[in-house]
């Protein structure tokens, strides 16, 4: 028999065989090393057990030995699609611990760069989601064409496209290069055209509607009880967005809206992200218009040999995938006593089975694609 696959004789002879299949970890559509043990009765899924941990790199234990500054590059590698929001959350936590004030210009740069990362992540997600539904890579290529432009911006500013390692405690590492802001303006001006094209290509497409509407439904109560955050929660009808709830950093100064879905199925999650990208563009326009000049880092802030006073802090932000939080306990030493990351992808993944039961395998893949998980963050 094929290893890892066993035909379990079902007790009730009348039923067909229960086919137990493990999909992954080398599977074309599981977004990295992630395995699903699926039990199939004919076409329908009877049970689905997600298995992950293949990408566990012991991030939190290492952080306890490396200095505060040293673990910033490691936060890039948590959710490797949006490194800057990871840095931001970590820096927020350390700033709460060490009490640095962030200069105005640094706050604005952080918001600009954070929203650009949200665009990068959502373009990735929409491309992968439609790719799982079978479109031969065309939407993926269009999404990646736009994403490349933003990654070039990151390369110009931080020196790397995905592993930016740009934010420091009390501000940012280096100031905007000459002409960078005009580049950003050009990219943002061209973005709505891409969004309109993407919407006209897909949202009214009968096949996509048939494959995504009513598939992988996540009820409002289950979403709240399971602690789901981010677009998955908003698609189920709960208008919870940390940028409005916490109004951390300077988000209170920008006016933007938070889209909410009504059905909580794959189609809603897809559309919510599309609408969120339009909101991010609004924020970016306002932030660039009001970008002040001045210092980019708190002069008192020390990055090397930082020894924050003993205590604990929990910094959280609205990362593209949900609420990303860093919980630090410091005992005054050069490295934190305890370093805990609240990964939105892992928590959003816990309800995968409830969403997929009763559906077919093709639905399970579509649902997994719509939750938008990145295994770097799930396994840490």
């Amino acid at each position, binding site marked *: 028999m*094929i290893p890892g*696959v066993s035909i379990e004789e079902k007790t009730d002879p009348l039923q067909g065989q229960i*086919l137990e*299949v493990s*999909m992954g970890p080398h599977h*074309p*559509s599981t977004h990295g090393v992630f395995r699903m043990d*699926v039990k*199939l009765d004919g*076409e329908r899924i009877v049970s689905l057990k997600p298995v992950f941990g293949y990408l566990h790199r012991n991030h939190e234990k290492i952080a306890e030995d490396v200095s505060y500054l040293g673990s910033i590059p490691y936060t890039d590698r948590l959710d490797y699609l949006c490194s800057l929001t990871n840095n931001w959350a970590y820096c927020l936590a350390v700033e709460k611990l060490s009490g640095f004030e962030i200069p105005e210009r640094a706050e604005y740069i952080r918001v600009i760069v954070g929203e650009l990362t949200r665009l990068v992540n959502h373009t990735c997600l929409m491309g992968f989601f*439609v*790719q*799982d*539904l*079978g*479109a*031969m*890579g*065309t939407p993926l*290529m*269009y999404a990646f*064409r736009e994403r490349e432009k933003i990654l070039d911006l990151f390369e110009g500013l931080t020196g790397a496209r995905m592993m930016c390692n740009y934010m420091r405690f009390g501000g940012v590492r280096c100031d905007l290069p000459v002409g960078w802001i005009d580049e950003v303006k050009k990219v943002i001006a061209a973005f709505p055209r891409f969004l309109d094209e993407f919407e006209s*290509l897909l949202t*009214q*497409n*009968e*096949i*996509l*509607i*048939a*494959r995504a*509407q*009513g598939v992988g439904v996540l009820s409002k109560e289950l979403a709240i009880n399971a602690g789901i955050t981010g677009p998955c929660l*908003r698609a189920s009808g709960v*208008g919870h*967005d940390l940028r*409005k709830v916490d109004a951390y950093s300077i988000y209170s100064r920008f006016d933007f*809206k*938070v*889209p*909410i*879905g*009504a*059905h909580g199925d794959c*189609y*809603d999650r897809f*559309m*919510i992200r599309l*609408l969120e990208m339009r909101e991010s563009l609004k924020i970016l326009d306002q932030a660039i218009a009001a970008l002040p000049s001045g210092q980019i880092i708190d002069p008192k802030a020390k990055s090397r040999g930082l020894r924050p006073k003993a205590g604990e802090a929990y910094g959280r932000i609205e990362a593209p995938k949900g609420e990303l939080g860093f919980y630090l306990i410091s005992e005054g030493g050069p490295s934190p006593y305890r370093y805990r990351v609240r990964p939105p992808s892992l928590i959003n993944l816990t309800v995968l089975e409830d969403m997929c039961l009763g559906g*077919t*395998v*093709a*639905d*399970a*893949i579509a649902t997994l694609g719509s939750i938008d998980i990145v295994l770097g963050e799930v396994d840490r």
Partner: protein
Amino acid sequence: MTLVERIDQAPLLLQRWAVSFFPALLQPWVAMLISAAAIIGVFASLFALSTLAERKGLGRIQNRPGPNRVGPFGMLQPLADGIKMLIKEDIVPLRADKVLHFLAPIALIVPSLLVYSVLPIGRNLIAMQCQLGVLLFFAIGASTELSIFMAGWGSHNKYSLLGSIRAIAQMISYELPMVLAAVTVILATSSLDTVNIVEAQAGGFWAWHAFTPWGAIALLTFFICALAESNRAPFDLPEAESELIAGHLTEYSGFKYALFFMAEYLGMMAISGMAITLFLGGWQAPLPILNFIPSWMWFFGKLACFVVLFIWIRGTLPRLRADQLMNLAWKFLLPIALLNIGLAGLWVKSSGWIAWPISVILLGLAIVGLGRLLRGSRPRGGKRIYRYAD
């Protein structure tokens, strides 16, 4: 024999000239051999061309140039693929059913090529003019399912078996509406012979069957079934299964896989050839004044348009789920095809003008009604309005 006619009948004259070298006894055999060789030669090279067109077309759709390294503008890419396929090691699974595993590609290529014998490529350029051309086309086309079963069963792999069952179920359920769509044309021209069908559409493009109410709907149904029959675009469930089953081709590599690959393209071109013959006036020129262009050029031009359409749809549409696929065939295409036969009968019996309004109304009603039935509970058009948090 003006120059234009000479070019038009060039293949025929060539064949007669070649045959004249042989003794009388052998001449019929040689004539058959030459036309067979011509078909295989022409359509095999068209296969190579269409793989290149597919890869470059998909590339251009996805904002990338497509293969352009092998030869000028990537022209030698099919040659490179061919050689690669020949060189690759042909792995046969250990406990596979050797006989079936070996026979499956052959059992697929033979009918795919046999089907070309009835397609009228140009004015009296047809390999075998037989009174039952269309029936022969569908009879031989029906036997391709057996070879898919052999491929699935022969590779002794549970996933290939499930993939081949899905492929057969899909092909059978889409064969029915396709044959019924062809029946409307037979009903209109009262002859199964492809040459008669093409001659019945002589005159300008307004005489083509595609421009009658029932013809347009039949062409649409035929085209959707052609997509499903050749396992392409929104119906490419069996092979490009990104979910569970990797399709019945998983255990094939090297030359056998190339044969399957070739059979898929040959099948695609054969079905588009039949669609052209039935609905778009085979080798007829759209306007009588354009008759100076040789007839076979029209056939290959229309064939090229169909191939481009196949590629275009493949680059755009996501895939249908297995049960939606079946619903579409049995609950939408089949009723429409049956209704269409009724309308074709009405069209043939009555003079044109009363048939037009009745068929347009009936067909419109059927499509909208069945479309809504197919959509089931989802709101109209799946349009959703999203509100914003306060």
